[in-house]
């Protein structure tokens, strides 16, 4: 259903870039000493993806305000310009061009490869850095969009591998049952990480059975039947899916009287889905931070307080912090490079080795602009409430799908 309009918009996107050659003539000059450094955001302010982009954009705003309060960088203030991608490819590409034409030296793009790549490609073409906040795909980088493209997320397989190690080593569970949502790349990427790591720990028989489902399935009753009749009896469930499908699935799993531990993806982050499963317990998932004030990193807790003060808690999501870290990382790289020249800043970013950001020690290399070994924060849900469990550092880097 989606392919035809998507193709049409893509054509439009191409056309619009041809039609607007004068809109953004190369990367803007860096010589204006006291003019502000422009940070562009080509993210979704409307349409289906706005829900995902608002938390990171807010965090970016917070970081910019804080940097400016401390006097800016290289004696210059930071200035944010925002353009709406409307959650669509064509306006996404246009939004990137618009903020670049307003002088953006770095463009924040949506937290998903499908939504963020049109804008990132435009930025790459104009020689400007693009940064996805929580888009997990390693294609944000030299292997995909190009050397000026970055993401503050971890590769999706990290989440699956973290689930595998946490379930085996911390919960001491040996037999897994998988519920894999095959509707999208991200969930299959996370599943790949789990399917790679768990059998290494628990042996070939570690994964008892794999059941698949789709976001659109109104019921996963039969997949649940497969769990109940699986032999040997699985000790826990690994579920790779996103909202709203994952909430629906967990509701049905618990409604069927299955109480075993469930490990999932970072899309279990946030509290607004919890009413769907009354009194939910025994669920664990990897997240970027804990936003409940109980993180083991006190700087994270202080950040959460500042965020709440500025924006309230309705948009508070753990992954939002990636939007904050982008600014911190960018400012640090600009300082090291002594310029805002995107190529030099990108080189400075590629020299990051375990730089302590709120999301954890962050590394970029000339090959990968995505995280493989940064520890994730394992969160738990007990009696309908989220809580911090532990920071989890993988014993070895997971593969990239």
């Amino acid at each position, binding site marked *: 259903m989606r392919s035809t309009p998507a193709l049409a918009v893509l054509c439009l996107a191409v056309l619009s870039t041809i039609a607007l050659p004068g809109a953004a003539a190369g990367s803007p000059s860096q010589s204006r000493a006291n003019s502000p450094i422009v940070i562009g955001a080509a993210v979704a302010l409307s349409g289906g993806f706005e829900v995902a982009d608002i938390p990171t954009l807010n965090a970016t705003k917070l970081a910019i305000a804080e940097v400016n309060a401390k006097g800016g960088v290289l004696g210059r203030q930071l200035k944010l310009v925002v353009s709406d991608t409307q959650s669509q490819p064509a306006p996404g590409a246009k939004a990137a061009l618009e903020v670049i034409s307003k002088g953006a030296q770095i463009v924040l793009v949506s937290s998903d490869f499908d939504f963020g790549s049109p804008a990132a490609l435009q930025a790459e073409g104009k020689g400007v850095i693009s940064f996805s906040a929580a888009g997990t795909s390693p294609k944000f980088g030299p292997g995909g969009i190009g050397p000026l493209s970055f993401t503050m997320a971890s590769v999706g397989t990290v989440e699956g591998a973290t689930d595998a190690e946490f379930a085996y080593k911390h919960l001491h569970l040996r037999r897994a049952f998988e519920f894999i949502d095959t509707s999208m790349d991200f969930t299959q990427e996370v599943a790949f990480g789990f399917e790679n790591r768990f059998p290494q720990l628990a042996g070939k028989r570690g994964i008892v059975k*794999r059941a698949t489902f789709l976001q659109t399935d109104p*019921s996963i009753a039969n997949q649940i039947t497969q769990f109940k*009749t699986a032999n040997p009896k699985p000790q826990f469930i690994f579920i790779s899916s996103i*909202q*709203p499908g994952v*909430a*629906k699935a967990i509701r049905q799993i618990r409604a069927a009287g299955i109480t075993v531990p469930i490990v999932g993806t970072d899309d279990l982050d946030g509290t607004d889905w919890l*009413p769907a499963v009354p009194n939910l317990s025994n669920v664990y998932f990897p997240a970027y931070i804990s936003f409940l004030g109980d993180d083991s990193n006190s700087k994270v807790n202080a950040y959460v307080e500042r965020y709440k003060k500025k924006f309230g808690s309705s948009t508070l999501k753990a992954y939002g912090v990636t939007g904050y870290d982008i600014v911190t990382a960018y400012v640090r790289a600009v300082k090291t490079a002594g310029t805002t020249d995107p190529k030099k800043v990108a080189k400075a970013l590629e020299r990051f080795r375990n730089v302590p950001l709120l999301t954890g020690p962050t590394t970029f290399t000339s090959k990968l602009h995505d995280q493989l070994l940064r520890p994730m924060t394992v969160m738990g849900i007990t009696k309908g409430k989220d809580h911090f469990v532990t920071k989890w550092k993988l014993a070895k880097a997971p593969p990239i799908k």
Partner: protein
Amino acid sequence: LTYAVQSTIDALSLGSLYALLALGIALIFGIMQLINFAHGELIMVSGYVLFFMVKAGLPWLLIVPAVLVTGVLLAMAMDRLAFRTVRGADASTLLVTSFAVSYLLQNVALMTVSSRPKAVALPAFFSQSFVAGGLRIAKLDVINVVVTVVLLVALGAFLRRTRIGVQMRAAAEDFQMARVLGVRANRVVATAFALSGLLAGIASFLLVMQTATLTPTMGVNAVIVAFIATVIGGMGRLGGAVIGGFVLGILTVALQAYLPEGLVAYRDAFVFTGVIASLVIRPDGLLVSRTARKRI
């Protein structure tokens, strides 16, 4: 064996839900040759009414009728505002109109309640299960089947026993002839929409009880499934829609249960292959409407 029996329960539960959805589509199609793709939005709007009433802490005695009334009123409003003006127009005009209504409502929902999924806090009763004969059965599965059967019996009685019901059946057979014989078109069509709205309200209820999650696009997939079920069953036959719904539900669950592991991710491809095969063998659907074929 346990697996087979449990799978049968799953299939019946899913089939009932599909049958309810298909019935809503078939009711309207039978009378005015309109495939109402906005049926999904009736489900969506009813769902949000449920959400906000639960959130406001209103009693269920008030919520249940309000949700059903929402479906009915919205369906009748659709008929009056959008479809009456194009009644009798080309089938494609009707189809485009229904898409327009559907997108309009989806976008209104996007603007007002946002795309953020909403979770409804429902009483624990709906997410419980009981054990019977070594099987663990979700209460909701039983509710699904019982509600569908009761509705089918009630609808059947309505269409056979009441005056307006008989008129609706006459209109479904041959709309022009029925009008000539004194059946009032507006009344019949409005009743059909009201009934389909009621079915949408009930379907919305069952769907939300199952998932407790709402999005502005929640009705889209439901209506596509319903449409396919209607086609398999035979356009224009209510019984056909019900059979189509069950066939689709059973086929989906059977494939989910018995396809080899490598293939099960492509379940829907097999489901639709089955649908195509069924249409090749019986192009007019499992139950053929007496008026479906043009007699020359």
